[in-house]
């Protein structure tokens, strides 16, 4: 009989282990993506929150950008998402088209001080009248260059598109084949090419109403030729060259660390991750934003850098709102966070951090934001611009071109056909 009891216990234990029981009543879960500096700062801010609220324990789950959306989507689909999560602006149509994919943060306005935020910024996180996400900071892609590499080549930072193009041959001649003025990965390249096209033609890339690309055939060809010209001029390495370093993050590749790749077109909110990985004493400096003569819009990819949302299944939404408020609006929170999530949108945080000298123009992301604020940026980026299928299509075609499997004309033609099909399906 004893054996029978043991066997039953084993069986029951195995069932029990599958039904996970929440350990403590006041436990919150929080997730985000980012680099090491953000992980450190956010964990520090969370520690401060726990000190101020001893009855609440916060479990943190953080990863790099790669795979984060996949992980979160699986959690949301299984109703096991964290209470507080960092969300991205273009995830809103995926998770909460009708506004019920996340909690409405306005319901917790008594513990979450929304008056610190501009209403126009809150609009970016609002779906169907419900405030699903609160923007933490705003960001856009701008140019940053490696000061030491450019000094070595004897050039000042380029001020217009022509000077960017002209730098390629000089880098090659003075420093060698491995040195490039810029490095662009797929998304960087897409953003930069779009910016150029906005400046030249005054239109965005996607015609949402028509569910298709906004460019004419000639313009699509020009879009791709911008890339081939840059590669031919030694301004950027080809995808083939980048691929030879394997599939890791660009800032982990040796040529970046050693300063062979002299610049990036990057989110101002993410630039410190790239800067910190350079071999000391090298550092980045903010570049000028190139503008075509007569352009009325810079074509910036301007959007909330990240947002915070509360899961629709959270059973402690008030505590979750308190945590968000602590990080964004309370001194102990925003001081621990510093600029690890960009320059805060929260008025209270921005004022205090400016007074104590944290927000200073010597910080790369702050300098970038000042530049962004000065540039004309009325043409909005479509949320479908970074549709994963569209990005994969672009990446695949560029690679085929670099491998000599397709010509640029064939690529442009194929891109139009397939991109329109993808957009039709995505926008419907």
């Amino acid at each position, binding site marked *: 009989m004893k*054996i*029978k009891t043991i*066997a*039953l216990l*084993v*069986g029951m234990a*195995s*069932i029990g282990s*599958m039904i996970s029981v929440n350990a403590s009543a006041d436990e919150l879960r929080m997730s985000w993506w980012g680099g090491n500096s953000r992980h450190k700062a956010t964990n520090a801010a969370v520690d401060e929150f726990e000190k101020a609220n001893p009855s609440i324990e916060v479990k943190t789950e953080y990863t790099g950008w790669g795979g984060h959306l*996949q992980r979160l*989507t*699986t959690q*949301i*689909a299984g109703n096991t998402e964290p209470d507080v999560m960092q969300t991205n602006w273009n995830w809103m149509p*995926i*998770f909460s088209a009708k506004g019920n*994919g996340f909690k409405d943060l306005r319901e917790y306005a008594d513990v979450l001080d929304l008056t610190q935020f501009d209403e126009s910024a809150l609009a970016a996180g609002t779906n169907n009248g419900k405030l699903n996400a609160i923007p933490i900071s705003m960001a856009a892609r701008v140019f940053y260059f490696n000061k030491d590499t450019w000094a070595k080549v004897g050039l000042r930072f380029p001020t217009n598109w022509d000077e960017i193009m002209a730098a390629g041959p000089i880098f090659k001649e003075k420093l060698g084949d491995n040195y490039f003025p810029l490095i662009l990965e797929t998304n960087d390249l897409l953003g930069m090419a779009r910016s150029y096209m906005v400046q030249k033609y005054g239109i965005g890339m996607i015609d949402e109403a028509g569910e298709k690309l906004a460019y004419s055939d000639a313009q699509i060809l020009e879009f791709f030729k911008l890339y081939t010209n840059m590669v031919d001029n030694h301004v950027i390495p080809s*995808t*083939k*060259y*980048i*691929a*030879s*370093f*394997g*599939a*890791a993050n660009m800032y982990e590749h*040796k*040529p970046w660390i050693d300063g062979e790749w002299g610049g990036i077109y990057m989110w101002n909110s993410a630039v410190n991750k790239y800067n910190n990985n350079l071999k000391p004493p090298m550092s980045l400096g903010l570049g000028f934003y190139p503008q075509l003569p007569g352009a009325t819009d810079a074509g910036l990819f301007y959007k909330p850098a990240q947002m915070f949302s509360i899961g629709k299944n959270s059973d402690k939404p008030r505590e979750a709102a308190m945590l968000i408020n602590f990080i964004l609006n309370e001194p102990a929170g925003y001081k621990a966070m510093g600029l690890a999530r960009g320059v805060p949108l929260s008025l209270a945080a921005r004022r205090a951090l400016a007074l104590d000298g944290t927000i200073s123009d010597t910080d790369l992301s702050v300098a970038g934001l000042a530049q962004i604020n000065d540039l004309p940026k009325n043409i909005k980026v479509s949320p479908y611009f970074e549709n*994963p*299928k569209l990005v*994969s299509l672009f990446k*695949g075609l560029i*690679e*085929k071109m*670099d*491998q000599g*499997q397709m010509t640029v004309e064939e690529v442009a033609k194929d891109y139009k056909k397939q991109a329109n099909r993808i957009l039709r399906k995505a926008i419907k």
Partner: protein
Amino acid sequence: MYENRRLGLAYISPYIIGLLVFTAFPFLASLVISFTDYDLINAPEYIGLDNYRNMISDDTFYKSMSVTFAYVFLTIPLKLAFALFIAFVLNFKLRGIKFFRTAYYIPSILGSSVAIAVLWRAIFSLDGLLNNFLGVFGVEAISWLGEPVFAMFSVTLLRVWQFGSAMVIFLAALQSVPQSQYEAAMIDGASKWQMFTKITVPLITPVIFFNFIMQTTQAFQEFTAPFVITGGGPAESTYLFSLYIYDTAFKYFDLGYGSALAWVLFLAVAVFTAISFKSSKYWVFYSGDKGGK
């Protein structure tokens, strides 16, 4: 009797429950999902055979299927030949043989882990270990991961390197070949090579067949190595089918199509295995075949 059966079931319940919940249910659920349009967030919508029909005009489907078959046909013969060769060598009574057996088995214990794949990337990268080593001899750096053919080779090599488990099975088989047969052959004046091809290989064909099937089914499902080392590139040259399934389901959030792709892979492996079994009666010899019992 009945009491015993209940007790037995209770003992194996952890396995049975695990099998039902984590294997059988997802297996059947993916079949159902493959007939739907499902993005994980909104409710699935039944669309019949559309997902399967869409594959006919899907270039990526053909590309990644052919890449997968190329990978399998490249990996399996290399790996089996290598495992058999090493097992053959390690079957001799040499000094320190146990150390070598362990050493050659270690890569298999490490398995297809992410850490090993990262190591592999560091070895084959343009500025990696291999090019640095070749540089000593004045060889110019080779773009192992940037050229489609070399990239496939680099990814393949990782699996071939993990030949240990096949080797151990071969070793066991080699040791069960009766010594008397070699002695008889020796008396008849057979060379070492003749003994290997005429005695050893025929007698261990069942084990070769076993290793072949095991390795093939695993190779069809390879994911970690290409995902970490090349990300499927350059130009989809290492874009194995499992990567395509993953991207479709979890990057494009098209669970329906992803499930349909997974079922096509399952069927491809099943058909391939069935053909292998059919062919086995022409080249696999069981010791009971002749003479009988």
